[in-house]
């Protein structure tokens, strides 16, 4: 297993009031994303556990793109990866922040 961690400063806090949300499933070509609103408003961390080694640069680009698009301030994001493609990863991340926005907790 390889673990990769990124820390970003965001423009704004993530919308919504949900405390935590989980989306996706750890299956082949899929991943689960756990989002927790536990960080200061303009910080975001993304920690990835993946069995597929050597794709750190791809993860870095996808996460940076996601942070730029979604501005997920305050979120600690944890990923268990089942070998998902970058486009699947991006969709799950966006689904996660969207669910945090819609959910009430």
């Amino acid at each position, binding site marked *: 297993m390889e673990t990769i961690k990124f820390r970003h400063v965001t423009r704004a806090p993530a919308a919504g009031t949900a405390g935590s949300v*989980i989306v996706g*499933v750890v*299956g082949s070509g*899929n991943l689960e994303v*756990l989002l927790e609103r536990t960080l200061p408003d303009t910080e975001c961390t993304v920690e990835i556990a993946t069995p597929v080694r050597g794709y750190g640069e791809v993860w870095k680009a996808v996460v940076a793109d996601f942070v730029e698009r979604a501005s997920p301030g305050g979120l600690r994001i944890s990923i268990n990866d089942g070998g998902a493609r970058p486009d699947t990863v991006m969709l799950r991340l966006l689904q996660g922040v969207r669910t945090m926005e819609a959910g009430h907790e």
Partner: protein
Amino acid sequence: MSDTKHSASDTASWFLSTARERLAGLLDSGSFTEFLPPTERAMSPHLALFDLPAAFDDGMIVGRGELEGHEVLVAAQEGQFMGGTFAEVSGAKLVGLLRAVRDDAKLPRTVLLLLDSGGVRLQEANAGELAVAEVMRAIVEARAAGVTVIALVGGRAGAFGGAGLTAATCSRIVLSEQGRTGVTGPEVIETNKGVEEFDSQDKALVWSVTGGRSRRLIGGADAYCGDTVAAFRQAALAVMDRVPAFDLATLQAEQVRLAARVKRLGACESAAQMWSALAIPDSQSVRNMDDEAFTALVAGVEGADHDAR
């Protein structure tokens, strides 16, 4: 009383949904409280040794909620994660739930098990086998304490191996056509006895033998429902109040029923032969009729309904 509070997810396929989607659709909106949620990170300590990813809930979601206003405890397996398998953590979560309901009369008296599992997780086989044994004992002890345990089976992994055994210890089993149950799964039979014995790639064969329709016709399930979240909710509600006493008389009646079933169907070599032996006119049509027609058919088949389990 199906009002608008479920409407969005009512028509969703049970088979295609994730465990969390099933729970969200099954229970009354906003009523679910999860025990040991993903944020607790109760994860498998073993999978990393095999270079396999873990899941934050280890593929087992346990908690409590309401089903059309009835308080229930629930446990749901995620069939897409490691085949929904019983392992150290996933098993302990289920055993803990069942022992809690056994010991604490203040907890809801109904447990819904959303089984979706191929059995024991081979990477954690010893812990998984122990978990299955503990789950079965806990179910029996909970039932002896007056708890109703209902298995809902309609997921991709079915309920095989330890999950098949677990289903068989429940008060009631609800199956959809896609909801296969059994002890030894099709691939395992083929691996051990050869493709001539059982061709696991032959989906028509697999479904006709292990699928919900055959199981329902021979009394291996107590209710048959369509592949939607709403259908499973209605079926669970319908069987919740029709649970037999868990006593010696019930077990003896079940033994008599099973002995009669072996006598009647034991020589059959295919599901179609069993359907013929059950005096179903045009037995081949069992595969093709719609859910409503099938439900009507079951009502007229001797031995499909029984109060013993």
